């Protein structure tokens, strides 16, 4: 088991290195990427541009720039090109919103997906199953920004039932925090819930035919015990590992559209605006932060999976 854990984390480290290098290189090769131009502003003279290039070290070889940037990231001094603001502090400011969104939404879509999956699987191809299948398909297909915008318009703008976007920290007002998060939670969860209910449903239907379920019934276990202890338990394991990764994606700033539509000023929104401005430092940092989140949570999920399903360790 220890070997398994160490192995996972070492692999994680390698991935992080690659992610950072790759991202850095991307921005070296894209057109219009010259950061000196951006820093200098619209009315820059060639002399100003040259001066900025020298001052910021843009004339140094690529790998030197890479290591410089990495150093700045790790010492917390990295500054964005567009506003000369410390990137890490920006990220720290955006974290509460992103974290609230990630935690709330992921719990919501997990429970939702499990519930709908269970309901669908009870009578496969029955009425409930078909209705929920249609729902899932619709939910997965609807773009997040459409759903979000429509909800905002109907429930916030027109009717003032919910606030019109923005984020209020929990410490400031718990009820306001909650009201501000309801619509974003719902919007982000919708497609995921649709997806998870289908995945869980199909796991359930497969598990129910397994021989050990027949054994469980033959042992005279109560129906509840058979369903919960054997069918659901075994079907949940792959869903949980999926969930871990999806959660990591959101907390890594992946919910760009949702954050932007609801103006939450989280990490995702910061990433979106930085990309538009081709502002390399924030992008680098966010990519690495996201990579860290995904890789670490992924490793944790792998370990949890091994705890839940001991067969994994056989091949480790």
């Amino acid at each position, binding site marked *: 088991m220890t070997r398994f854990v160490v192995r996972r984390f070492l692999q994680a480290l390698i991935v992080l290195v690659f992610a950072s290098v790759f991202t850095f290189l991307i921005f070296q090769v894209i057109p219009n990427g010259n950061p000196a131009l951006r820093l200098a502003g619209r009315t820059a003279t060639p002399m100003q541009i040259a001066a900025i290039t020298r001052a910021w070290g843009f004339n140094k070889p690529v790998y030197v720039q890479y290591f410089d940037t990495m150093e700045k990231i790790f010492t917390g001094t990295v500054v964005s090109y567009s506003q000369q603001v410390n990137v890490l502090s920006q990220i720290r400011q955006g974290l509460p919103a992103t974290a609230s969104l990630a935690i709330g939404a992921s719990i919501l879509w997990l429970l939702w997906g499990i519930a709908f999956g269970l309901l669908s699987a009870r009578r496969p191809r029955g009425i409930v199953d078909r209705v929920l299948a249609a729902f899932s398909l619709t939910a997965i297909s609807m773009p997040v920004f459409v759903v979000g915008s429509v909800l905002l318009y109907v429930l916030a703008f027109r009717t003032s039932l919910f606030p019109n976007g923005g984020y209020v920290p929990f410490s400031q007002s718990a009820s306001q925090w909650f009201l501000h998060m309801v619509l974003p939670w719902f919007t982000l969860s919708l497609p995921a819930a649709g997806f998870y209910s289908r995945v869980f449903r199909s796991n359930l239907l497969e598990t129910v035919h*397994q021989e050990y379920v027949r*054994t469980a019934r033959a*042992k005279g276990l109560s129906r509840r015990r058979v369903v919960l202890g054997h069918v659901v338990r075994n079907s949940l394991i792959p869903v949980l590992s999926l969930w871990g990764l999806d959660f990591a994606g959101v907390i890594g700033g992946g919910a760009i559209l949702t954050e932007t539509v609801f103006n939450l000023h989280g990490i995702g929104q910061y990433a979106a605006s930085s990309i538009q401005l081709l502002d390399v430092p924030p992008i680098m940092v966010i990519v690495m932060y996201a990579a860290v989140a995904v890789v670490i949570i992924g490793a944790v999920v792998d370990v949890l999976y091994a705890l839940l399903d001991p067969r994994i360790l056989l091949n480790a």
Partner: protein
Amino acid sequence: MSGEHLLEVEDLRVSFATEDGVVRAVDGVSFYLDAGEALAVVGESGSGKSAMSMTLMGLTRDTNATFNGQVYFEGTELIGASESTLRHIRGAKIAMIFQDPMSALNPVYRVGEQIAEQIRAHERISRRRAGERAIELMTRVGIPQAAERARAYPHEFSGGMRQRVMIAMAFSCSPRVLIADEPTTALDVTVQAQILGEMRELCEESGVALILVTHDFGIVASVAERALVMYAGQIVEQATVEELFEDPQHPYTWGLLGSVPRLDRPRSERLPTIGGSTPSLLNPVRSCRFAPRCPHAFGRCEEVPPLAFEVPGQHEHRDRCWLSVDDKRALRVVDGSIGLAAASGQSF
């Protein structure tokens, strides 16, 4: 019906409604089982043996299934009994073990837990005490270092050991009947011999009646006292084991006995075979189901379903065939041993 037998099955019929029609998996099966007896059920795929054993346990899931007939266990009628009644019998009074112990055990739970789970489903007992009982059971079925091994997962055991775990589970609540569905087919032959021997000992020690579903006549001869031969959802012959081997009455039985190569006899040139293949259980014919494959079929066989005839002088021995007993005894010998004449090889 009287409660003179531990288990009495009377004209059991189990059908499934499918898109293509009605499948009559079990079509008029009657037999009994006494306490402590060992009964073999011999059949191939499509014979209905699995549907029958699952029905005895009340395990048939299908909502499209219809049941007719009666199954009496210790006087209680099982067909149509409430789920709660069945649940108290399942695992506690009638236990079952299956063919493939690897897939029959839940891979994510420890073995000791799985045994304890069964005990706790039927008795009010603490978790710890159930765990201790599980370890005792594991020792009893021959698993060394049971206390340690109880904490292991199924995939950490070899095939024979896993089957022993299944046996431990089955015996955990002191059942009266054990149904073993091809319990050793997936195992090596030396392990099979061990497991069969141990199972039989355990049953004899505890007075547990055994229903052993198998296709291997060697196992029937060494373990069972009586046997049923099933074909296409019906019992075509039932007898004591001696009667079955020495005076088999039904051509299907001859075919089965003859087509199996035997180590203790000289090699034959060609094996006698049963031509054709097992009939579908979908809308089966009303006449003799075996007639299409029977080289001795005649007029009546294709018209009227044969009744269960008792062999004169052998009260346990019944079969469903229109041939007279004398004809049967004359026809069944092929090249000095029992079998059907070798098929020509064409089997469209």
